[in-house]
């Protein structure tokens, strides 16, 4: 059995038995939803429906219902897209990269982080779809055989790379997530007394028996998928960043973008995981599994990635001056001092300055403060994308075309809508799916469980 140094903090608090772990995790699945869940679900559904209404209006009437114009052709749509894709980074990073690095603390958070990833990528995929002027022809972006002769997609276009990168990432993440769920579905199946749910979970469990051979295959496939998913974590956002980096627009045309975007994505992903888990551990009484230690670990990731992002921002500024390119340097002066200065400084404050407070242990182990910071980082990262997209576009080469961007109700509605849909999905997940990988957790109970650790210490 895996042994762990005594000085390491336990990852499962309290005197938990295997049975209690199952009980704790499956409380929401086997029991009834509480009032808070219904309230949250109600609010999320209203937001989702409002958003769907706005999206239908958008599709029915035209992109003009957004606030875009001749100069700013992308604004909230692609900002939201990149924001959601970024959020969708944490899950796979946690489950794949941390799995490869044998970080056991990931087990408390990887299931919900992966769920978040799946839903966030789904929300991200909404945007490139609805931002098209003619969404009904969206299939043109796939290299499908057709009757138009030699008509083919343009493999030079980063937007096309996006299509492949995101669909690959989404499918691998989904498979990875699902594979992890199989043993837990089997546990639920075995516990269910009602016929219909038992049947459904039985189907979902793919006939899992839990024998040694199955576990062996389970672990092998997890490793293989982790190996596949790890490069994807880096490729997706690198490719998203190339939408901008390969262009000629000052402020977009930057070689630093791929690493900068990836670290930003991890940064925002972890912030969103924190936002969700801090609420979830409280509401679902999972404090024994998602401990302060877990939160601290995630905060450390936030400091690291936040600092990388900060360095990237400063490098960009330096290069814009050092390059001597008139348009480039103006683009950055304009970001900081032009009409969108507030967005730039909101981004700088939220993403560069505020995460640095996590150097203080007291703050990074304070749950309330961490929750507040996670929201700040989410806002900051939204502004980062807004700054990159809108402030670069709104004043590019020819001053005659400089404009501002003014969002409309439909812009706001669609954004709120995706948040609503995301939470609807996440709440359904929390209600019907095992929110922690309970079978995997059991593997570390003896090595990292509090009672076993203290027993080991006594000896």
């Amino acid at each position: 059995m895996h042994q762990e140094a005594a000085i390491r903090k336990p990852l499962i608090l309290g005197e938990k038995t295997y049975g209690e772990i199952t009980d704790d995790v499956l409380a929401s699945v086997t029991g009834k939803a509480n009032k808070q869940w219904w309230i949250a679900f109600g609010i999320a559904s209203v937001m989702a429906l409002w958003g769907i209404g706005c999206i239908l209006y958008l599709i029915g009437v035209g992109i003009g219902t957004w606030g875009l114009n001749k100069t700013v052709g992308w604004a909230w749509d692609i900002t939201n897209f990149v924001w959601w894709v970024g959020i969708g980074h944490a899950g796979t990073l946690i489950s794949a990269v941390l799995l490869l690095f044998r970080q056991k603390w990931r087990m408390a958070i990887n299931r919900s982080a992966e769920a978040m990833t799946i839903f966030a990528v789904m929300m991200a995929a909404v945007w490139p779809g609805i931002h098209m002027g003619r969404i009904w022809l969206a299939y043109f972006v796939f290299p499908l055989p057709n009757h138009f002769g030699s008509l083919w997609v343009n493999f030079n276009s980063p937007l096309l790379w996006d299509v492949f990168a995101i669909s690959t990432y989404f499918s691998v993440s989904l498979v990875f997530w699902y594979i992890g769920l199989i043993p837990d579905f089997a546990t639920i199946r075995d516990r269910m007394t009602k016929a219909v749910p038992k049947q459904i979970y039985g189907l979902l469990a793919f006939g899992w028996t839990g024998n040694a051979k199955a576990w062996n295959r389970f672990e092998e496939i997890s490793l293989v998928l982790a190996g596949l998913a790890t490069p994807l974590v880096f490729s997706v956002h690198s490719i998203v960043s190339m939408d901008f980096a390969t262009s000629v627009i000052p402020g977009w045309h930057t070689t630093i973008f791929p690493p900068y975007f990836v670290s930003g994505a991890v940064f925002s992903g972890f912030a969103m995981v924190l936002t969700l888990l801090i609420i979830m551990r409280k509401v679902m009484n999972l404090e024994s599994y998602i401990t302060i230690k877990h939160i601290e670990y995630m905060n450390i990731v936030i400091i690291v990635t936040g600092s990388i992002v900060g360095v990237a921002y400063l490098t960009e500024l330096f290069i814009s001056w050092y390059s001597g390119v008139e348009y480039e340097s103006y683009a950055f002066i304009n970001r900081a001092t032009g009409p969108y200065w507030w967005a730039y400084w909101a981004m700088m404050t939220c993403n560069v300055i505020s995460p640095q407070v996590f150097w203080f242990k007291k703050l990074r182990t304070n749950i309330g403060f961490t929750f507040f910071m996670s929201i700040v980082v989410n806002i900051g990262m939204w502004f980062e994308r807004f700054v990159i997209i809108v402030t670069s576009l709104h004043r590019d080469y020819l001053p005659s075309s400089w404009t501002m961007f003014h969002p409309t109700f439909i812009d706001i509605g669609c954004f709120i809508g995706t948040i609503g849909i995301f939470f609807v999905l996440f709440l359904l997940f929390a209600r019907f799916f095992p929110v922690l990988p309970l079978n995997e957790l059991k593997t570390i109970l003896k090595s990292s469980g509090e009672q076993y650790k203290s027993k080991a210490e006594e000896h």
Partner: protein
Amino acid sequence: MSNNKKYWKGVEELNETPSFQESKNKEFSELIPVEDFLGDANLLENSQTTRRDFLKYLGFGVTAASLAACETPVNKVIPYVVKTDKTSPGVANYFATSYFDGNDYCDILVKTREGRPIKIEGNKMSPLTKGGVNARINSSVLSLYDGNRFKSPMIDGSAVSWTTFNDSIKKELSAILSKGGKVRLLTNTIHSPSTLRLIAEFKSNYPEADIKQVTYDAISYSGMLEANLESFGKAVLPSYNLSKAKSIVSIGADFMSSFPSSIELTHQYASGRKPENGWMSKHFQFESSMSLTGSNADVRVPVKTSLHGAVVANLYNYIAKKVGASSVSAANIEIQERIEKAGEHLLANKGASIVLSGSNDKSIQVLVNGINDMLGNYGSTIDIANHSNERKGIDGEVSSLVKEMSAGSVDALMMVGVNPSLTMPSSINFNEALGKVKLAISFASRPNETTTNTKYIAATPNYLESWGDANPKTGYYALIQPTINPLFDTKQFEDCLLSWMDKSESYYDYIRATWESTLFANQTESVFFGDFWNKKLHDGLYISKPEVLEPIVFAGNVSSAASQASKIVSSDWEIEFYEKVGIGSGNQASNPWLQELPDPISKITWDNYLVMNPSDARENGFATEYGEQKNADTVNLTVNGYSFENIPVIAQPGQTKGTLGVALGYGQAIGKKNEVIGFNAYPAMAMNNGSIAKYSTDVSFVATGEDYQIATTQTHHTVMGRTSVVRETNLDTFKNGSKDDYNPAHILSTGDGPKDVSEIDLWAEHPVKKVGHHWGMSIDLNACIGCGSCVTSCNSENNVPVVGKDEVRRSREMHWMRIDRYFSSNPEDVEQRNYTSMETPEENPQVVHQPMMCQHCNHAPCETVCPVAATTHSDEGINQMTYNRCIGTRYCANNCPYKVRRFNWFSYQNLNRFEALNPSQDDLGRMVLNPDVTVRARGVMEKCSLCVQIIQTGKLEAKKEGRKVIDGEIETACASACPTHAITFGDLNDESSLVRKASESNRSYRVIEEVGTQPNIYYQVKVRNTETNIA
């Protein structure tokens, strides 16, 4: 001979076998077992098909058969039963005709497709306009398809037939004529020889009656006419020749847009502005509000309109002193030094200079004549013998007519080509006077302010449905021919008058008779009139021998003029009434293309407003930035006792401090919803010294605290020191410097040493170079005056949708061609790169107009980013859009460094909110669409195609004739519309082509070339004739 051959069906018939004999008489050759089937009761009973089933099958069968018989609905497409002569579907026909609406005169070609006029182009045979048109003229084709036009004559607001209409008028008119009543014709300027002959005949037919024609020009040059009457004994406007003038001083004359013969003058002006010739005219402009002309001047001096008299008097004195003439009284004004500078330059170019004034004050014009006379300009740059006929209205006659009317002594009034209820000063009280006229007849093509006040409305056709002729200048005659059958039940004024005179001949015959008796009789080139007529109708014009220049004796009384002109009325504020380039006097305010054409100076669409100097605006607490979500503040304005409420104030750099300006021609209801656009400023004008003054010192305003939405296409006004966007220099540097001084190449340092940007390629070179055609364009910034003629021409050629004020305010205008207007910033700020201060234009800025459209980059950033390859490069160098492949990601527009791509945010041809103004929303308006160009669906990107349809037509034409394309034969819509020929289109692979030569000239550069896009559109550096080189 009968045919006795025998045909047989088979060997059996030939041999007449017994079996054949047997079966020959049977109906069916084999036994059909009907009996077996129907006779067997058992079988029938056992079969599954019941009666009900049978009925079901029957029912289905009948329904299916009848459904199959239904045709899909067929819209009426009626083929020519007999093909009309020279009209082939898909092939355009051009007709030469002329345009004159009382303001602009132009010789034009009308492009028709399948019998529909769809585009107006300049007539290149015209020695007057040389193929140029302006925005008002090339947009006029849309006015033909205005859904608000009168569909038939009206009496008391109800439609009647022409028989009824003519009968009732004849009854009333003959009563008036027979009792010797007063009949007045209030018309705009008429220079049609036939119309004038007809009016004269009308007069002479009824000698007992008092018939008189009074000419009323809404924007009058009465002062100038009277000044010329005093100076030279002729109440005419002279012909100018700016191409010979080396020194041009204009005091408030906007000769590039609103001045009579502006198209002609613009072309002449541009031909004197070619630095390659080694000389360039120097243009001084003294004016109050910044006009299009002022924006192109080398030296622009802001001066109040009330001081224009003093400016002219001082200029007179300066020149008089130098030439030894006696001086006149002149008030001292602050800008003495600048007047002397202008005077000095004029004197240095005696006989090759010109002084112009736009004033309607006779005394100022007399002084201007005096100056031109001292400078010896008459006979060289000014020709009074071969004068212009484009304005004839004398304000005094108009006001005395209104007096007569209010006295009740006018019995009949016919109003032709005028809208006095809109345009007369309120103090004249025209509407009240009109009420006292017994028989008032309005000739109008659409409802206007005057027609609502008249009982009889004669519905007139558009000029494209009419016959006519013109005589814009001495010895210069032109014909107007219909290019389409009248769309509605309309009759032109002349036809009405003929039938009221009980003449059976049509106006067409009448014109022919006029031409036969006058012009044909005095010529020798044709023997038969038919030949002569056909030739002239084909050409559209006829030039008889010019008048011999008679020696000019100036007889103006300058000293009395000077004492009158240099009177200074001091006031805190004064206001100038000006005409916008698009709307002009307001004749075509109902034309959505013109309403959406941005004003060349303010870049504002769909409104008129009060302009004010930015520092004045700041002092009074008014917003100085406007457009998009920034609104303008409004004031309540009182001018000459006439009040306006909630007038938006616009801070206009270049506006003289202490002055205001307001555009005329607005305040008319247009479109399906009869929306009133802007406000009508005409009533606030007043008579001064016997003419309607174009300014007033009696003005006050109060801020209302409210605001007003402004739709502008450009919200940023300076070029931010970006010398790769706009390049300019002065004449000295151009002449004496090297290319590096004014048009340096972009050199980048690379690993292999410094290299020109054009040598650095990420991509392989595009194969278009040196193979086949390589289309390109050159735009001379020195010739471009920013008039916007190309913009409307492009709109009309390429079916560019009208989007309306709200969409323009959201920066979503669809124009493929735009003109960027940059004001200069403070040079010190540019030097020190104070970006924030650079955003503010100077108080009296220099202006650059830069036409901007798709640059057709050889390395196009848009092409690489489109995920579906909807925008690609043609093998002739054109960046082309495939609309039906476009899915609308807008990535191409974002990645376009020139921001020339336009996205269809909505379905402009279907969505209700564009119904009121977009012509493509109804059947009538759709007639203007060019069938060669797709109407773009919502959600697709569009942009300048370099008029690929015109290129294809040109290539086909050449191919049919088995020759190469000739340079200049193919012209894009913008190039053909340009009155200054600033735009040259052609084949860059053709070494002798004009565009190739232009692209290789020293002044040639490409916009932001360092980005590496390698555009196919070249620009020529602007050269100012100034002493200092201000970037």
